[in-house]
């Protein structure tokens, strides 16, 4: 049952991810991206971590994408405008990055053993998550991230105020 659901959501995620890039209309792209995020959340849920699954929705689908859509609709962007000239270079860079990604995924797949210790071996409960996050190993990284986000907020306010 879990395997069937995994394949359903995995296929949906990949199809929507391709559509995000292939769509000409940015609003459609945004909706497809929301679908991808929801599918990923379902996969996290299947891996036994409802906490991360819900956070995926709260943070990405529920907050960041709402802002994206808000801006797209406020500017009323109809169709993507293409600037001639840099198409070839961008495509080359895209293919190169894709090749790196495929190589990485392949390397991971080759090393993975079927039937080995999978996600089920981990305790992915909310309590365990919190313990790991606030353990000495991750505490500094966690705090550094919050300082980074805070400085980004201050930067955003400064930039916005300059316009006023």
């Amino acid at each position: 049952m879990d395997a069937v659901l995994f394949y359903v959501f995995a296929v949906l995620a990949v199809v929507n991810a391709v559509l995000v890039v292939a769509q000409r209309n940015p609003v459609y792209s945004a909706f497809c991206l929301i679908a991808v995020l929801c599918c990923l959340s379902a996969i996290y849920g299947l891996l036994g971590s409802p906490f991360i699954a819900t956070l995926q929705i709260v943070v990405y689908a529920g907050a960041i994408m709402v802002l994206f859509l808000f801006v797209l609709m406020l500017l009323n962007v109809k169709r993507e405008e293409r600037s001639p000239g840099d198409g070839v270079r961008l495509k080359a860079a895209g293919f190169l990055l894709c090749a790196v990604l495929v190589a990485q995924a392949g390397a991971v797949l080759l090393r993975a053993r079927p039937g080995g210790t999978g996600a089920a071996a981990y305790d992915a409960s909310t309590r365990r998550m919190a313990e790991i996050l606030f353990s000495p190993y991750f505490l500094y990284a966690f705090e550094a991230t919050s300082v980074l986000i805070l400085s980004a907020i201050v930067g955003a306010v400064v930039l916005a105020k300059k316009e006023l």
Partner: protein
Amino acid sequence: MEGLTELQVELLAATVKVLLVVGVLLGLFSGMTYVERRLLAFMQFRLGPNRTGPLGLLQPVADGIKLFFKEELMPAAANRLAFLGAPVVAIATAFMAVAVIPYGPPFEAFGRRWQIQIADLDVGLLFLFAISSLGVYGIVMAGWAANNKWSLLGGLRSAAQMFSYELSLGLSFVGVILLAGSFRIADIVDRQAGGFWNWNAIVQFPAFLVYSIAACAEVSRTPFDLPEGESELVAGFHTEYSSMRFALLQMAEYVNMITVAVLATNLFLGGWHPGVPGLPAEGIPGFVWFSAKVGLILFVFIWLRGTLPRFRYDQLMSFGWKVLIPLAVLNILATAAVVALARR
């Protein structure tokens, strides 16, 4: 219950629960449209709908039939897919949210312990928050797809408003979660057992205040009904909708309102606990307490609509970001300090 395997019993129970919750919600929705119109009318010295059936009680039925047989209209320049999909998204998110809320106390029947709750998630409150944050998409899609300036403005207002007030809504949950030490809504309710002085509405008064205001804004009820301000935006995001699609959008709004009321009862008003020590909270009395509290909150929603004028948009934004969010954060700081010191 004999002769059934464990799985069959579970499936049967789940089906019954889903049918029960959805059925009651749909009934409550049509009932609420009647009650709201009548109460509003009384508050304005009018009579309200009183012609269809005794006391006008059949008005929701007449409205339902009317909406079914009305013509479906779609603007020629509308985006077909998004226009048709928006009511579906709105109603789906509204009904997903009700799945994790417990309705009433646990009770014994057929030698088992039951609770009217479709899914008892460990991260129940967080899940609810996630789904409610998705609810805005139905409205935004509806506003954008119709290709109408009023609709688009309504959709944009709605996105900005929900986004701003969702933050304070989420922050108001945190104090309650800290006190209960759990995301499970049933745990939060059980922490408030005993006298009414244990209720989060009193222990977590600032959070209750923030929740009440933010919840009102989340469901776009007066005084936060700017997304569909009739005097300036015709009807906001659902201007171009007619017939059953309009009814679906309307239904999503009412279901969200009921969800918010049920959640307020569970998180802040002690859920099914009567609030007076010694009175029974299990079984039938628990359901009575629970329904009475939900009914009271729904009445307050209608009362507010009959009393308060609408906010101006800049007032709405500055109030949300400069008053509600700081208040919620201060409440979290204080609660966290008290909880940490009490654990010492």
